[in-house]
């Protein structure tokens, strides 16, 4: 590749990524030259401004048709735009959360935290835009490595260290599994570009290959489900969530999980869409039972284990495992619904989880405990904290007039709208939702029915803004989901996802 070719690419499609990269670099330099004693808090503003700028750039890119650069390894299509909005929005809210997170342990590493967060975000954005196994993997690793460090940022906190260690070990294993699966894909097709893989997969008609394809699918799928904390690779989540600082937990819970679904959709759907399975039937139909069992197991394990948790961060870890199970359900729907359903659910998921973590951060840092008892009598102490928390919990439980209900309703539509409706999967989802009522409403009961010692919780301005924004979004999306759905249909064309672009390479006559 000579310079001319390099310059001929439309680099503007990567503008949001460049902004994030630039701000992250700037932050690391500033952090390096700042005095050791001076507070790193103002850096949050810079990081936030960078994310906001990237977000605005994405909105300005909405009209750009599907483009790809670097020989179709990097794409700007509806899919990447839609999910990048979620990633950026989630990180922006996490930044606000972190700027109000007071813990001495974190203070000395605060500067580090911001540029690591942006680096992780950059990795997630690369995952959303990549169309090549190599770039996808680089994005995944950038996100993972930054996350490992962030989980252990509270250096003197044993739990935080434990969290980082467990995360890096189990994450490494998952990466190995993913790579192993990808090596099969490469071995079968001889390509790393997703679309070329899809093309070659469709041409594989030899019977002995079909088992290898199924094998490649299952291994890759299993490895990629690590990030979304789906069973059986879910064990890391409770330990990591418990030990990591609250903003990091929120980031892992929301942004990292969204990125996990992004890469899952990219790799699985594109690579295997035309692949024949055993006896030449489409593989995506053939592996449906496997995905369904995985989804059902995730829902059951997440919800049932959450019942026994007294530690609020662990409870939310299991709750997020269960939610991952719900979001896996659309994978069996085999229609274009899958994108809007997952996108909408993740949008709702973002608001309700960041909102809930805002409240958790305020309460746990004031009381110095992670026990569920921190919610005791919250309604009488701080009604302005208890009421939004109630909305978030109702949304997580999927009660109407909240965004969570609409998301779940959509997932039901996906599960029951097939040629052969998956009644039992819908039944498992509904039954586990009922189980989740017990622990979700337990928090509500503790907030409203128990007496308290009467200490008020002070809410800093930034946190109040996040709370208000999340609560309003949860309610508005619950009453008028069309606001988000119309935005989705109006700006994003899911067909672009499958559109292969022939990169025009300028050939110069020398």
């Amino acid at each position: 590749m000579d310079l001319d070719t390099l310059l001929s690419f439309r680099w503007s499609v990567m503008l949001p990524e460049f902004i994030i990269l630039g701000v992250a670099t700037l932050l690391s330099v500033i952090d390096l030259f700042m005095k050791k004693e001076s507070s790193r808090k103002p850096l949050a503003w810079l990081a936030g401004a960078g994310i906001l700028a990237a977000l605005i750039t994405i909105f300005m890119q909405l009209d750009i048709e599907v483009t790809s650069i670097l020989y179709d390894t990097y794409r700007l299509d509806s899919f990447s735009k839609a999910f990048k909005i979620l990633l950026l929005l989630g990180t922006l809210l996490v930044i606000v959360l972190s700027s109000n997170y007071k813990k001495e342990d974190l203070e000395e590493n605060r500067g580090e935290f911001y540029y690591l967060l942006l680096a992780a975000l950059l990795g997630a954005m690369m995952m959303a835009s990549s169309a090549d196994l190599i770039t996808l993997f680089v994005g995944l690793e950038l996100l993972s490595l930054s996350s490992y460090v962030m989980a252990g940022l509270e250096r003197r906190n044993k739990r935080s260290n434990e969290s980082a260690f467990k995360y890096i070990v189990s994450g490494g294993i998952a990466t190995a599994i993913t790579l192993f699966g990808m090596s099969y894909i490469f071995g079968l097709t001889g390509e790393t570009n997703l679309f070329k893989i899809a093309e070659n997969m469709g041409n594989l008609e030899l019977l002995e290959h079909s088992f290898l394809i199924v094998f490649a699918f299952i291994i890759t799928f299993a490895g990629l489900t690590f990030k979304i904390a789906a069973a059986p690779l879910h064990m890391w989540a409770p330990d990591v969530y418990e030990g990591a600082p609250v903003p990091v937990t929120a980031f892992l819970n929301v942004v990292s999980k969204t990125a996990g679904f992004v890469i899952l959709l990219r790799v699985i759907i594109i690579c295997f869409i035309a692949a024949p399975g055993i006896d030449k039937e489409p593989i995506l139909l053939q592996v449906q039972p496997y995905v369904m069992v995985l989804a059902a197991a995730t829902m059951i394990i997440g919800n049932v284990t959450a019942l026994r948790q007294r530690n609020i961060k662990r409870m939310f870890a299991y709750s997020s495992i269960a939610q991952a199970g719900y979001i896996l359900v659309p994978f069996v729907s085999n229609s274009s619904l899958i994108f809007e359903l997952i996108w909408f659910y993740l949008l709702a998921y973002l608001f309700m989880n960041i909102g809930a973590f805002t409240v958790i951060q305020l309460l746990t840092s004031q009381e110095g405990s992670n026990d569920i008892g921190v919610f005791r009598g919250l309604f009488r102490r701080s009604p302005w904290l208890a009421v939004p928390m109630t909305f978030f919990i109702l949304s997580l439980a999927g009660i109407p007039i909240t965004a969570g209900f609409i998301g779940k309703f959509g997932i039901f539509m996906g599960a029951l709208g097939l040629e052969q409706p998956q009644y039992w999967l819908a039944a498992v989802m509904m039954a586990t939702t009922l189980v989740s009522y017990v622990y979700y409403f337990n928090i509500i009961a503790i907030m409203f029915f128990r007496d308290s010692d009467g200490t008020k919780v002070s809410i800093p301005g930034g946190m109040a803004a996040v709370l208000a924004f999340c609560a309003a979004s949860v309610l508005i999306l619950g009453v008028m989901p069309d606001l988000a759905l119309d935005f989705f249909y109006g700006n994003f064309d899911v067909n672009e996802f499958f559109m292969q672009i022939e990169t025009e390479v300028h050939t110069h006559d020398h």
Partner: protein
Amino acid sequence: MNTWLLSILIFSPLLGVLVLLFTPSHDEKSIKWIGILGTLFPLGTALVTLSAFNKSGDGLQLAEKFQWVSYEVFQTNGDVSYPIFYEVGVNGLSMVLILLTTIVSVLAAIASFSIKKNWKSYFILFFLLEMGMIGVFAAQNLFLFFIFFEITLIPMFFLIGRWGYLEKEKAAYSFLIYNGVGSAILLIAFVAMFMKTGTMNFEQLAYTFSLPQSELNEMNITKGFKMGMLIALLLAFAVKLPVAPLHSWMVRVHVQAPPPIVMLHSGILLKIGAYGLIVFGAGLFPDQFESLAFVIGLFGVINLLYGAFLALTQRDMKRVLAYSSVSHMGIVLIGLAALNEAGMTGAVFQVVSHGLISALLFFLVGVLYERSGSSQLKDFGGVAKRMPIFAGVLLAGGLASLGLPGMSGFISEFMAFLGLFETMPVLAAIGTLGLILTAVYVLRAVLAITFGTEKELTNAHDLSSTERIPAFILLAAILFIGIYPAWLSDMLRPTLDSILLGLGG
């Protein structure tokens, strides 16, 4: 045509919420008055709606329809959209039930004067509950119905768990879980129907399901699917009604919840189960409903007898009334199972009549509890001497409950059994035993309180003027329907006719 009237009616309780948000929470008196005025506004709107409602008119009236949510699915054979509308409307049946809701709500708000703490949040939840109840009856599609159905769930959970008696939290949880099971089944059935037919509107669904089987096969709707849906719906509403053996949560709620909330729960919320059975069960799947009629009738008789037997052995007046509700809901099932005009009319009459009677009786028990801190039968006796008006109203309510001619209970029981004797005489004959048992347990309980040796009561003053309002209004309504049932049956006739038409009657 969009008139907005019905939407205003549905969301009218929110006005009270809005005003309450700006009222200081320690100002007990203002809050209680806002509580009453806030329920009077929906009642007024309901009366305006009633005057705009054409009684003899057929079908849906005052309908409103707006595009709400749309899902687009791109498929190989073109884009298919699954639109969900906001559609409300009333027919005779829902009009009557909305009216019942708003009346009982006002009276329950008056009865809420006995609430001792946290009046502000109490009334906010109370209004949300009322909104949910009105919405359930006005909704004209499955999505909206489900949303309002669930909206009633959350305020009830709080109202029971926060303002109830000793085991309130247990009662709140069992309410939540049992009803959650019902809702879960309901949601799966609703989405399944939506995905098969592409519509959620009641009328369109009824039309689609009434198409000949050859056309339905093209839409992948088999007979088995229809039967499965009906069973799912019956199961979901059986929890709500409740049908034995799914009734334990309801008894717990009736014993533990504060009296005004029990008035609403027993008076209105249980009726959502009956309404659902009529509108979704008999309305959408008439053929399948017919084939299950015997089972439904059997469960009706079991409910009637089982509830009555248990009511006979209870020592707590609240429990007597709770089991009496179980027993009386059996009559709704009996009427529905008859599949004829008399039975159907009886079932609907029972819904309205029991709504009034149980609201009255639970109100009176609440009064008694407030005076003495007990509702055990053994703690009372000879109340008639010290509280004559109270005793009189209680006796009248009891007589209405056992179906004395001239009161609303008589009409409904008579009609329901008349219907069932026509189609299933043996079952009906067994069922009549329940009527005798009803007389026994009602009189046993009522007489034990009002007559006999006088027991010491710390605070035995008769009904105060604020307490008389709900008592007399409910009694008057019970008598009015008992003496002049034609008013009600005229309202209901077009709706019932259309359902009976579907049943082939």
